[in-house]
């Protein structure tokens, strides 16, 4: 589980992450990766602290953090919804399921709802093609998902 940030642990975790890479700001990517592992995402305060300690301008740190897909600047939702957009699932209409999910949740793939309940993602083939379109919610597989089912599925998770 991700650590909750406080001023003190931010200061310390950044210091430790930097020390692991010889206090070399050129290793920014690794430093950010380690910090994302700790907190689950890269918060504004965290990036500012990284900039302060590494003395790399915030605009640079921000560019690096937004450049790589592996970094996320938003906390992740309680539930991660992955929609398979692999070939088989696509052919069976997964994009329509995805569209419906985007509508119902009000976010685009890659984003998290404001209430931090759901993070919506796409994945490419999870090896369950016969079940396509496949949707996975926190590791639980749903097969043959239709756009019509989406709303009740989300409702079910919201009410948990």
């Amino acid at each position, binding site marked *: 589980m991700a650590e909750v940030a406080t001023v003190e642990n931010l200061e310390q975790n950044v210091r430790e992450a930097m020390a692991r890479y010889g206090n070399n700001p050129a290793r920014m990517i690794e430093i950010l990766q380690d910090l994302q592992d700790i907190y689950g995402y890269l918060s504004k305060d965290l990036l500012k602290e990284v900039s302060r300690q590494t003395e790399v301008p915030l*605009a640079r740190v921000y560019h690096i953090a937004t450049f790589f897909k592996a970094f996320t600047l938003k906390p992740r939702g309680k539930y991660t919804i992955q929609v398979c957009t692999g070939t088989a699932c696509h052919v069976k209409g997964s994009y329509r399921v995805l569209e419906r999910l985007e509508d119902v949740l009000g976010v685009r793939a890659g984003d998290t709802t404001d209430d931090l309940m759901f993070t919506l993602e796409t994945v490419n083939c999870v090896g369950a093609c016969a079940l396509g379109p496949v949707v996975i919610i926190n590791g639980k597989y749903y097969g043959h998902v239709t756009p019509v089912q989406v709303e009740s599925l989300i409702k079910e998770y919201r009410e948990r």
Partner: protein
Amino acid sequence: MVKLTIDGKEVVAREGQTVLEAAQAAGIYIPALCYHHEVKPYTACRLCMVEVTKGKRTRFVTACDYVVADSMVVRTDTEKVKKCRKLVLELLMAQCPNLPQLQELAQIIGVEEVRFSKSNDDCILCGMCVRTCAEVVGLHAIGFEGRGFTRKVCTPFDEPSEPCILCGACSYICPVDVIPVEEVDGYRIMERWHKKSRLVACSKCGKYFMTEDEFRFLQEKTGLPEDRLRICMDCR
């Protein structure tokens, strides 16, 4: 001294000069949107592509960062070069359809229509502002966000950038003039970077001449006494 030919013309250039600089000095036009001698070449706009032959090898290079060498043969006027330029400009115009600067360039290099689907950006992502802020002013107040399709130039988190002093250097350098600076009611406002700063009036003539943020920046940088800094350039 380096001797080369550009479009058949013998040109003498300084060691370490770029092809673009050598061409400009020789009065040969190469379109270039992301180059300025005050900042490092960045090769973002790709408009300055030329053909370079060294020995037996001919290739396409960006003139703004390619360094001259003895007996190098540069061509800026071949069909291939012209075609390449046009395509690059066409792509830029598809990204930013409403920029008069690009339209002017289109006249010069002969782009008649844009065949690609248009988006409605106003920034060509040349990075001039970003580099000027970092390299000339030394503040790194703005930068890039994201990559590829969603890449843009903004302040960190698209919020008022702390280091920005509203000096306006970015606005001055922007080749397509999309960073407005406004002065209203004693404030300078730069909407694009979400910044606003009170203006300082000259203690002699009373004219506004810099922002309070600039004032503090200069004070720190120069260590000059406050009363001297409060006098504008005209009154000094």
